[in-house]
């Protein structure tokens, strides 16, 4: 059965960046902030307030969950987060939606302007 992700779309920029940063590996809050800054080449910076507010919402929606235990070499006080399979599905659906938006935008920007 194909899952319907439409109630979650479109994602807010903060939610999209958080899910993207968790797509590769489990991360703690500060790690997510650094990864978001890296992915956007410093153009989008998340503050801790925005980050944890969005993480709380994403956890309530079941897109993100707390990772069972942090890696052995890391500070045990830090909490790690990971993407659920449902969250991965939502992220894929959002990326597909954005791809269609970009495709459409390219077609319209390439087409010559008609006089009205």
């Amino acid at each position, binding site marked *: 059965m194909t899952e*319907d992700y439409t109630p979650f779309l479109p994602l807010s920029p903060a939610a999209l960046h958080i899910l993207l940063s968790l797509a590769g590996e489990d991360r703690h809050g500060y790690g997510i902030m650094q990864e978001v800054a890296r992915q956007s080449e410093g153009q989008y910076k998340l*503050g*801790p307030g*925005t980050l944890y507010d969005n993480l*709380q919402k994403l956890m309530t929606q079941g897109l993100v969950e707390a990772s069972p235990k942090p890696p052995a070499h890391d500070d045990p*006080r830090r909490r790690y987060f990971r993407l659920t399979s449902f969250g991965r599905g939502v992220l894929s659906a959002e990326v597909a939606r954005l791809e269609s938006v970009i495709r459409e935008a390219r077609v319209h920007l390439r087409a010559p302007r008609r006089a009205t």
Partner: protein
Amino acid sequence: MRACYRCLLWLHPPVFRREYAGEMLWIFDQSAESQGAATLFIDGIGSLARQWLLRSGWWKIALALSLAMLQIVFGGFATMIFGHRHFVEPAQDPSIVNVAEFAHGGSIGHQPLTVGIVMYLAVFITGGLTVMVIGLTLWMKSFAVRRRSALRKAS
């Protein structure tokens, strides 16, 4: 600035504070120099507003209060504009308020403000507020139930 940020975290709802305040303070210590303490403080204010107004449901009461205020303002304008057309002679004794006349379009514009009128307005406003809060809560509950069933279907 760290103490101010700590106070800001303390103002967040208890559930959020217990879960994330420690990590937020730790991140503040780590990134205050690179991102700027003021930027992080403004971000914290935004989070505080979202937590109380959007996530905790306080927005329902704020909305109900705003609607009640709007209702009172419109009521006042309506009385100012149309009140004089339905002017009712004031009662002999100004302390006696003819509530029945008032309720059927009578004006209070030319009557002295008495305890009775104030009580009548207080009951009216409180009743309006209660109805709005209950209405909004029920509406939000039905919205949440529909959303939950949609999410359950999706997962």
